[in-house]
């Protein structure tokens, strides 16, 4: 199968090569050699049009071009206006399309391995966990859901693509492919003052192709290889005239898993689908809920990811200060990855079908953006209650005022999100939300950017948000920055910032009863939202230093300290045991098995995270043929008020408190004592009459059990990447990269799981057949290091892909 794919790719390449005509750059009777041999005086005699032609023939030296492309990038996300990356007042990285494609990254998530401070773990083939600076798995000892990164705001052209239902980013639901990207801008550290809630650990803003990229009518990138992996994108872009640009793009992604088996937490190993369907615990209870259909829940257990998307762009640029962009698109995705439900197995399906419209306008200083995303999302395929209709509206108006050394940018924002599971429930009560739930956020912001001198800059950004479930409360976030440019090659900054998460709809609106009557006790679990919680907040102090020791090296150092509080969790509140009982003779007797109901609610927990860390990034253009890039992050996270008790241990203790029996056989539980009390008081009538005995335990771990200064091991002590981009000839380029991370320990409600240190070596060899066509072989994890990167999920082996990249 693989061989056939390569043959097809080769045939396409040959076909495209045959229509490619090499360009001979001669226009005014000059050759490149002649131009390069001319003196400045000779060139200065040329009229402008001839000078331009001569410079075009000579081209910018490849070294100068590399300096410009790699060491002198522009960024807009850190200040909301274009600036030199070297001058960015925040910890910022820009990854260009060219860098992503050269690296061989097969997805946006994988490309994040090239960015300092980002931990990327592959869960199943093509599905990743992406965390900025860590703080993962807090709170731990609970559902796998708490491994999701809910503290980074991902945006496409500043349009949030955040999952406000459960928190986090559903990466597979991004409608765009790699071919749509102009660059990805990453800002590390709390950035809520710029972009609103959930920009807690940072922001990832994916910028799609700009009008200057509209110089190729047709372009695409297609590759295929191991594990039935097909990845492709195709774009049609047309500059209609000097003001109007249109584009139509599409992308497709199909990847199989390395196994068809499912990992069952309590058995600590993988089972086939049919084995899992029949699997029973030591008490003879089935793991799989007989109410569910295994063939719906795991219709295709070999599939890791399938998604496709289509996008249309219209860009009208009346001028640099007056422009309107309209984009719209659709995506479908179906993946098998870490479960978002309370599932006995670690993996479950997620399916999404959404569309969006995004309107952006720049009119004489007003920066206006409005977008709407809508569709259907199922967070746990095959399990009733997780499928929702959804809509997300976001509108922002900001205004740029320039007073010379002072820039002022006030703004307002309105966000409205709804999820509605009504259409997908067999009866009310079986959904998480049981109807339409809505979250509205109003925000006002102000950013001040002041140059006290040419070298000394102060930035203050402030934003306050009002959430519809707490209408009387406004939540502030801010960035206070001072930046001093020692000279053109040395820049130091100090940042104090605060950001918060938004509430997620399951946290505030959950209203769910899980009927577990065919499963081990409890018979019912009640999940209840909480509208009175405080929002998780992160405060950060950061010292940053950028330097260009020589023209060809850029170093970026970040030292940071953060403290996080108000973490939220779905936690056991109480367990109730109820049963009809009567007096039979002298003894109280149960008339049936007690009904056990567990009550879970969302709450703030007292745990606080304290993180200290440092990142160092080096970009080094060694010469025109060789570029080296490396980054490393080291960190340590400590927890105060860490609760060492798992969710299931709390449930177990509550149940024990109700029904435990001493070693000598005498009952002591609250429930049995209650039965005894009722019998003695006469409340318990003789059979066949009965009364209901009901008792509740709300046991919670004593605060004295909580630990301070607890080392949080879910985030590795170090991670980073080192890579070289070697271009031995104009035709051939070799990119190799090693991404590595240290040991980490993941904890959920069942188990602790150690992920050992790992190094992933990737290499891509490209052959540029012409200006229009490049063919390549792409090796991912070429040392075939199979160890799991994410707890309880797949071992993804080494992969080889072959592909073509073309543009006409």
């Amino acid at each position: 199968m693989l061989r056939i794919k390569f043959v097809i790719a080769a045939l396409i390449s040959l076909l495209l090569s045959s229509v490619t005509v090499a360009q001979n750059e001669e226009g005014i009777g000059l050759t490149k050699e002649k131009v390069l041999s001319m003196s400045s005086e000779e060139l200065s005699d040329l009229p402008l049009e001839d000078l331009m032609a001569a410079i075009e023939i000579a081209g910018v030296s490849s070294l100068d071009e590399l300096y410009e492309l790699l060491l002198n990038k522009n960024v807009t996300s850190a200040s909301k206006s274009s600036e030199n990356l070297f001058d960015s007042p925040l910890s910022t990285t820009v990854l260009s399309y060219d860098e992503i494609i050269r690296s061989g990254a097969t997805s946006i998530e994988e490309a994040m391995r090239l960015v300092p401070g980002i931990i990327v773990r592959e869960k199943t083939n093509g599905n990743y966990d992406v965390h900025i600076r860590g703080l993962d798995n807090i709170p731990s000892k609970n559902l796998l859901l708490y491994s999701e990164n809910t503290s980074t705001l991902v945006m496409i052209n500043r349009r949030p693509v955040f999952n406000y239902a459960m928190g986090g980013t559903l990466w597979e639901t991004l409608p765009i492919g790699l071919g749509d990207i102009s660059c990805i801008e990453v800002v590390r550290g709390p950035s809520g003052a710029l972009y609103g809630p959930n920009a807690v650990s940072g922001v990832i803003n994916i910028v799609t192709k700009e009008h200057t990229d509209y110089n190729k009518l047709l372009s695409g990138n297609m590759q295929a290889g191991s594990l039935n992996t097909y990845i492709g994108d195709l774009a049609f872009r047309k500059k209609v005239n000097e003001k109007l640009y249109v584009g139509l793009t599409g992308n497709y992604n199909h990847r199989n898993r390395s196994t068809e088996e499912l990992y069952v937490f309590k058995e600590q190993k993988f089972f086939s689908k049919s084995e899992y369907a029949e699997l029973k615990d030591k008490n003879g209870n089935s793991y799989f809920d007989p109410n569910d259909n295994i063939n719906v829940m795991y219709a295709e257990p070999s599939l890791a990811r399938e998604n496709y998307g289509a996008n249309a762009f219209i860009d009208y640029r009346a001028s640099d200060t007056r422009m309107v962009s309209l984009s719209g698109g659709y995506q479908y995705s179906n993946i098998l990855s870490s479960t978002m439900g309370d599932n006995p197995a670690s993996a479950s399906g997620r399916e999404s079908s959404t569309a969006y419209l995004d309107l952006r306008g720049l009119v004489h200083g007003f920066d206006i953006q409005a977008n709407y995303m809508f569709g259907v999302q199922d967070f746990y395929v095959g399990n009733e209650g997780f499928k929702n209709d959804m809509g997300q509206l976001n509108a922002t108006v900001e205004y740029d005022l320039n007073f010379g050394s002072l820039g002022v940018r006030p703004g307002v924002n309105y966000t409205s999100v709804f999820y509605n599971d009504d259409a997908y429930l067999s009866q009310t009560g079986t959904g998480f939300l049981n109807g339409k739930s809505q979250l509205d956020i109003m925000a006002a912001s102000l950013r001040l950017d002041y140059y006290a001198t040419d070298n000394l800059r102060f930035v203050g950004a402030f934003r306050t948000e009002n959430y519809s479930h707490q209408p009387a409360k406004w939540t502030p976030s801010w960035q206070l920055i001072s930046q001093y440019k020692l000279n053109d090659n040395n820049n130091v900054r100090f940042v104090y910032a605060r950001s918060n998460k938004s509430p997620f709809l399951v946290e505030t609106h959950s209203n769910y009863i899980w009927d577990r009557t065919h499963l081990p006790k409890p018979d019912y679990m009640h999940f209840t939202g909480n509208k009175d919680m405080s929002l998780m907040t992160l405060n950060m102090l950061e010292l940053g230093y950028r330097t260009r020791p020589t023209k060809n090296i850029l170093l970026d150092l970040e030292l940071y300290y953060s403290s996080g509080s108000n973490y939220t969790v779905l936690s056991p509140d109480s367990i109730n045991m109820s049963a009809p009982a009567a007096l039979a003779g002298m003894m109280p007797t149960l008339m049936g098995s007690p009904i056990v109901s567990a009550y879970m609610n969302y709450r703030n927990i007292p745990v606080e995270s304290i993180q200290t860390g440092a990142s160092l990034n080096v970009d080094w253009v060694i010469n025109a043929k060789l570029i080296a890039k490396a980054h490393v992050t080291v960190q340590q996270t400590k927890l105060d008020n860490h609760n060492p008790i798992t969710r299931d241990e709390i449930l177990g203790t509550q149940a024990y408190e109700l029904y435990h029996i001493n070693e000598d056989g005498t009952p002591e539980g609250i429930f049995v004592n209650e039965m005894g009390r009722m019998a003695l008081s006469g409340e318990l009538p003789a059979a066949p009459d009965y009364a209901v005995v009901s008792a509740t335990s709300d046991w919670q771990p004593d605060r004295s059990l909580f630990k301070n200064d607890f080392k949080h091991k879910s985030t590795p002590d170090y991670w980073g990447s080192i890579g070289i981009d070697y271009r031995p000839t104009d035709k051939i380029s070799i990119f190799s990269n090693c991404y590595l991370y240290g040991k980490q320990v993941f904890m959920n409600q069942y188990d602790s799981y150690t992920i050992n240190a790992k190094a992933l070596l990737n290499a891509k060899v490209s052959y540029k057949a012409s200006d229009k066509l490049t063919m390549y072989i792409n090796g991912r994890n070429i040392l075939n290091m199979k160890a799991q990167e994410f707890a309880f999920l797949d071992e993804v082996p080494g992969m080889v892909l072959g592909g073509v990249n073309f543009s006409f």
Partner: protein
Amino acid sequence: MKRTILLLCAIYIGLASNEAKGQTAAYKALFLYNFSKNIDWPPMSTDDELVITILGDQEISAELQKITKTKKVGNKNIKILSAASISDVQNSHIVFLGSNKSSLLKSLSYKKEKEPVLLVADKGGLCSQGAAISFLTINGKLKYEISPSIIAAHNLKVSHKVVSLGIEVQ
């Protein structure tokens, strides 16, 4: 894994070699000289010579010095001044802002808003922040964006040729 990392480091260090020199600064200097020939300034106090101030780019300053040793604009000598900060910028016909100083463009354009000066920047997209002309590289070719409206706002006249050869932004 340690061996792999050490091996990679050895390969990377072994492949390292000396830096080569680029010629882009010379081209930008030639462009600046050409712009000076194709722009009309209103009468100014410094009419006996044409003043070009380079803010934060010594390479371009040196290249311009080479050109202006032998060249004039009309019958005017060209005077090249170097500045390290905005406050150092004196009355000039052209101010070139090196890419390392791009962050000062907003302040500079605000300060020079009413003056007959051609502000030239060294990064794409800076015409939206007040530059009249801004260099950029597209597919290995050195180009420039030009904003006729900003040029006119500074009371300068630019030849049609300069506009048509650049990437016009309004």
